[in-house]
């Protein structure tokens, strides 16, 4: 008997790690790995495309590069040759991580920051909610609170700046026509796929500089982290053997200068008034009550006195002429005969929730602590960019129109939300419980639907072969809000109509920008 026991323990001790090895995955990824790729096209006319905010591709000048046969350039080549000849493990990892231009990686970093800062302020002991203060970002609650409007706006600035900056980059690349270092000196060891793009200024350095500057403005507490990332990215271009230092220096200064143009827009787009004080928030509520006979009330304990950004609907739009153009008609009055079937539908869903409905609700929840719906669609766009091996200019074009569309979607949706001030299901349906947390803003229209259909429309334009998938995702993202118990069907339908219209407005600008 004693022997049996020892045998049993021995077997258990041996077997347990084996059992767990099979289900305990050591490599749960914290970023999306992909192989650096050769660009499908180079778009050598890219320097003639129309920027969105810059007045022209040549608006910002950069110094002429030294000639390839100059001693200065030869010295740079020689330094590059030494730097790329032998990489440490860390350097090789950095080259692979940034994969050259680094645009999708910076998009991932932007998503990461959106998720990190997407936490609502906690109430203090007196039951009051302090607000983040951009003038003192490190004092709790940290600035920013990257809720869906904030995140959509952040992505829009990051992406549209990249696009304008890369049009300018292409302009200068082809104006100066400095060949890649490895084209001049074939003995340089490279660690990335080669391409025939002129190398001055470095597109990677432009992307790093724009990302660092824009994301630091939007997430000021990440200044050091972003500086470190940008430095590593720029160094990775040297380690990879694809850019000399003067390519990088020129790209860096071009990127910063383009951001300075966008910075002016960021400071004056009206966002700073969006998170209103309580008296203004109350007056918006009272106006809705007077007009419609209903108003939304936050249901948290203690109640949050002001919803998320009541005046975000007044923020400057990117491509939609005005919010009224895409604002839907009014929803049915709460408690009306017309309203009741919609409420019943939500009760029925909640009472009979299937496992698949639960999964859909959770998969698309994109709530607090996540990169928000706009981040989710940026992730899809990144995957498409990698799949289609887009060069950074063309990739930035996708990101720019996608994110300007979602920026406009956020603005238009928030206009409707506070214009109609419609109560959430937990306010109108007595005793209603939900599997998702109800957000701190009115119900009509659904942000998920507006964001998702605008995004699907734009991505379908750029990647028509996957249009069907984008539509399925937009449908799923939208219906997920009903499964979660936080939106009525009419919220979703109105959001869909607005989202599709916003997508069309955006595409109408894209098709005449020269990049079709």
């Amino acid at each position, binding site marked *: 008997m004693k022997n049996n026991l020892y045998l049993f323990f021995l077997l258990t001790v041996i077997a347990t790690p084996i059992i767990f090895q099979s289900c305990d995955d050591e490599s749960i990824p914290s970023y999306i790995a992909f192989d650096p790729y050769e660009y499908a096209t180079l778009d050598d006319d890219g320097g003639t495309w129309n920027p969105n905010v810059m007045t022209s591709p040549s608006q910002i000048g950069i110094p002429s590069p030294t000639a390839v046969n100059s001693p200065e350039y030869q010295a740079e080549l020689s330094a590059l040759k030494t730097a790329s000849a032998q990489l440490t493990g860390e350097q090789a990892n950095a080259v692979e991580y940034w994969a050259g231009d680094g645009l999708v990686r910076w998009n991932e970093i932007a998503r990461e920051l959106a998720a990190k800062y997407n936490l609502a302020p906690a109430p203090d002991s007196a039951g009051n909610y302090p607000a983040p203060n951009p003038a003192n970002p490190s004092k709790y609650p940290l600035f920013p609170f990257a809720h869906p409007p904030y995140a959509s706006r952040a992505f829009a600035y990051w992406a549209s700046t990249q696009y304008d900056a890369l049009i300018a980059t292409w302009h200068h690349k082809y104006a100066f026509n400095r060949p890649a270092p490895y084209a001049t000196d074939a003995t340089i060891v490279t660690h990335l796929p080669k391409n025939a793009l002129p190398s001055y200024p470095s597109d990677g350095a432009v992307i790093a500089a724009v990302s660092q500057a824009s994301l630091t403005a939007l997430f000021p507490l990440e200044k050091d982290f972003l500086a470190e990332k940008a430095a590593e990215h720029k160094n990775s271009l040297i380690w990879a053997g694809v850019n000399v230092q003067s390519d990088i220096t020129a790209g860096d200064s071009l990127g910063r200068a383009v951001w300075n143009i966008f910075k002016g827009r960021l400071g004056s787009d009206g966002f700073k008034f969006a998170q209103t004080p309580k008296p203004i928030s109350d007056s918006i509520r009272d106006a809705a009550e007077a007009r419609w006979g209903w108003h939304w009330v936050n249901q948290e304990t203690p109640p949050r006195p002001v919803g998320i950004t009541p005046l975000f609907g007044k923020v400057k739009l990117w491509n939609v002429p005005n919010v009224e153009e895409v604002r839907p008609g009014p929803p049915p009055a709460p408690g009306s005969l017309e309203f009741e079937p919609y409420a019943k539908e939500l009760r029925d869903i909640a009472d009979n929730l299937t496992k698949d409905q639960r999964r859909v609700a*959770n998969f698309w929840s994109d709530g607090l*602590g996540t990169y928000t719906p706009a981040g989710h669609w940026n992730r899809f766009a990144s995957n498409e960019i990698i799949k289609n091996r887009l060069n950074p200019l063309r990739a930035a074009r996708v990101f720019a129109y996608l994110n300007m569309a979602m920026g406009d979607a956020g603005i238009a949706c928030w206009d409707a939300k506070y214009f109609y001030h419609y109560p959430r299901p937990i306010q109108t349906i007595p005793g209603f419980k939900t599997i998702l947390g109800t957000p701190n803003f009115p119900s009509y229209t659904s942000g998920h639907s507006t964001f998702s259909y605008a995004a699907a429309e734009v991505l379908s334009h750029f990647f028509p072969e996957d249009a069907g998938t984008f539509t399925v995702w937009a449908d799923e993202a939208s219906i997920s809000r009903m499964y979660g118990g936080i939106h009525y069907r009419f919220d979703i339908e109105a959001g869909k109509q607005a989202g599709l219209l916003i997508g069309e407005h955006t595409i109408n600008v894209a098709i005449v920008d020269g990049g079709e």
Partner: protein
Amino acid sequence: MKKILPFGCSLLFTISLVTSLKSQTPTDAIMMSKGLICVAVVYTNDTWDEYWEGELLRVNGNVGTLTRQTIMPMATLGIGERFNIIAALPWAKTESSGGQIAGTSGLQDWGFWLKGTAIDAEIGPGSLTLHGTAGITGPASNYLADYGPYSLGLGCADGTLRGILQYKLNMGVYLRGQAGYHLRGNARAERDYYYTTHGVYSDKIDMPDAVSWGATLGTWLFNNSLKVEANYGGFNSLDGHDIRRQDVGFPSNEMINTTIGGGLQYYFPGIQGFGFVLSAHQVLTGRNVGKSTAYSAGVTYFFPVWKTDETEPIEN
């Protein structure tokens, strides 16, 4: 050799964990004799209205009081004189008094343990025993582990090895210490991105391993019909992350607690094989867990499954 406790019922000890979660594990030194089975059903009511967000003890008006009720059927079978098998399958239900998040209910984690006697020696005025258990638990339904305090369980496989050392005086008083190591597999979310201290692009949740431990002082009274004991114990995740300010709890949080409790187990002298158990536990300190107060009540019944030469007559 003297039988340890021919009429005791080995029970699982329920660890009150997490903002919500629980696990159960055998921690006592009782062995069922060969051929004898003990079946039990224990109901537990566990509530908290404060929890630790990281190290900050707080209330949350959108949760109010969280109540978790568990009904746990279990069985312990003596398959050898020094060798028991234990199985359990709890059903749980969660709900909160505040907020509008729906509670949930369903089967939690099945559990299966092997328990053996490594040392059983008479020393001085009593006996020293060392028991070992090896067990595995895992989700018995597809409950959502990523459901904050409402989740039915941690959603991961948990393989635990535990040692249980006890010295029991012949007069009935005993002192016991136990400690176990929990090797934990991944839990699963229904989304493929979440943020811990960094973003994670997976629906898999890497669960940190953990240790749990406890000390118990108890005694048998009234001719071995009543057992009374007090215990102190704890649970420590060996890694993991804090709940960020105003964020929702997550399965891979660094969960730590210490608990004090007491209980009794009684066997009716006249009714062969029947008994009941009562216990209460209070979480004293914690990190990323609820400050739970839990009460349990259950009935036990043991009877011979098969007759062997070694099966002793049951006499209460």
